[in-house]
C-alpha cells in the first residue's frame, strides 16, 4: 500500500523544459512509424552508439505485450532500471498524441529514479502513417519506415512522413529482394519534406545507425546550448 508519499514534491503540470527543482530536463526524442519498420532495432542501436557518452533512458509503448521492453532488456542495451514500458489500451497513437499523461509520468519517473539524464527515447507502438507525437511529450520526433513496407509510402505522405523532424527509411539491405526503388523513395521523401532531413539506413550494414546517432547528437547540442 502507498499511504505515505509526503517526501516528494509535486510533478510539473506540463512539459516544461525545466524540472521542478529548476534544472534542465532531458531531451526527449520520439520514434514512431508502422509496425515492424525497425523502431526498436533503431532504439537499441542508438543506445549502443550513445551510452558511453550520454546518460540515456528509454520508454516503450507496446500495443498489447511488453515485447519491445523485453527485447531491449534481453539485448542488455541499457541497465533494466533505465527502460520503462507504458500500456496503451489498444490505441498507441492516443498515448503519444491525444492523452500523453502516462508517457509523461514514465519520462518524469525515469528522471527522478535514474537521473540526471541527457536523453530519453520514447518508442511508440507500431501504428499507421498518421500517428505523430504531441509536442507536449517530445522535443523532436523520428519517423521510421522501411523499404519492405512498399516503396510508395514516401509518396503517400501523411503527417509522419511529411512532418517528422527526421525520416528514416530503414532496411535498405532488403531493397533488392522486395523490388523497392531507393532512389525513388528518396526523391518522393524529398518532395514531401522539403528541407527536413531523411536518412536511408540498414542496421545490418557497417554504418548501421551512424547517421541517426549524429542527428541525435546535433539535436542534443542545440538543446543544451
Amino acid at each position, binding site marked *: 500500500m502507498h499511504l505515505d*508519499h509526503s517526501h516528494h*514534491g509535486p510533478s510539473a503540470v506540463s512539459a516544461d523544459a525545466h524540472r521542478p527543482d529548476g534544472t534542465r530536463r532531458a531531451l526527449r526524442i520520439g520514434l514512431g512509424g508502422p509496425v515492424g519498420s525497425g523502431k526498436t532495432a533503431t532504439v537499441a542501436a542508438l543506445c549502443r552508439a550513445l551510452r558511453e557518452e550520454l546518460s540515456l533512458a528509454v520508454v516503450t509503448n507496446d500495443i498489447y*505485450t511488453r515485447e519491445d521492453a523485453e527485447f531491449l532488456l534481453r539485448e542488455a542495451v541499457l541497465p533494466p532500471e533505465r527502460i520503462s514500458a507504458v500500456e496503451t*489500451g*489498444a*490505441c498507441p497513437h492516443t*498515448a503519444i498524441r491525444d492523452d500523453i499523461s*502516462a508517457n509523461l509520468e514514465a519520462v518524469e519517473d525515469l528522471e527522478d529514479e535514474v537521473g540526471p539524464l541527457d536523453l530519453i527515447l520514447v518508442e511508440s507502438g507500431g501504428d499507421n502513417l498518421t500517428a505523430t507525437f504531441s509536442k507536449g511529450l517530445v522535443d523532436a520526433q523520428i519517423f521510421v519506415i522501411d523499404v519492405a513496407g512498399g516503396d510508395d509510402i514516401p509518396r503517400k505522405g501523411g503527417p509522419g512522413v511529411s512532418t517528422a523532424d527526421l525520416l528514416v527509411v530503414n532496411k535498405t539491405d532488403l531493397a533488392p529482394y522486395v523490388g523497392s526503388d531507393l532512389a525513388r523513395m528518396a526523391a518522393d521523401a524529398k518532395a514531401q519534406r522539403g528541407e527536413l532531413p531523411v536518412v536511408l539506413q540498414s542496421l545490418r550494414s557497417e554504418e548501421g545507425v551512424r547517421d541517426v546517432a549524429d542527428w541525435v547528437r546535433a539535436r542534443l547540442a542545440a538543446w543544451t546550448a
Partner: protein
Amino acid sequence: MSRAALLVLADGRFPAGGHAHSGGAEAAVKAGRITDAASLEEFCRGRLHTGAAMTAALAAAAALGVDPTGLDRAADARTPSPALRVAARKLGRQLMRAARATWPHPELDALAQRFPKGAHQPVVLGLTARAAGLGPEDAAYCSAYEGVSGPATAVVRLLGLDPFDATAVLARLAPELDRVAQDAVDAARRAMTDGVDALPARSAPLLEIGAEVHAGWPVRLFAS
C-alpha cells in the same frame, strides 16, 4: 455551477489516461462473462451498483470538501485488490496532471504534494470538480458514468461489438445511474458529519479477482 465545465470534465476525451483501462471488461471478456450487448449491460449494471457506487460517493465527498487524505485511506480500505489500488492511483496521478493544467487550484496542488505518485482517482476527481466550480452531484455523476462508459468503450475494441449497441447499453442504464449518483451524494453529505465510515463499501469480488488475474497476463490490450 457551470454546465459547460461539467461537459469538459465528463468528456471521454479529457486527457486523463482512462483510454488505457477497461474497468475489468478485458478480464470479463476473456472469462466469457461478456460476449454481447446483453452481457455487457449486466456487467455494467453490476459495476454501477458496486465499484462505481463507491467511487461516486468518494468523489462527491471530495467535492464537498471532506479531507482528501482520509478519503484516500477510505478508498484503499474499500479496494481489496492491490492491482486495482495501483490502477486507481495511476489514474489519479494522470487526472491530477490534467486537472492542474485545466483548473489550477491550491487544493489540487496540496493533494499533488501529499501524493506525488497519485491519490485514488475518485478523490482527485472530486477535488477537480471543486476546482472547476462544480458540485458533489457533478462529481458523483462523472465517477458513476466513467464506471460504466469505460467498460463499454473497451468492449467495442475487444469484441468488435457494434458501437451503437454499446452506447444504447449506457442509455438504458441512465435511470439507474441517476439513482446511484443521488445515493452517492446523500452518503457524501453524511460523511461530512459522521466521517468516511458513512460512505458505501461495496466491492465486487469477481471484479477484484479478475483484476488480480489480469495483472498477471503477459499479453493484454488494457492496463486494467
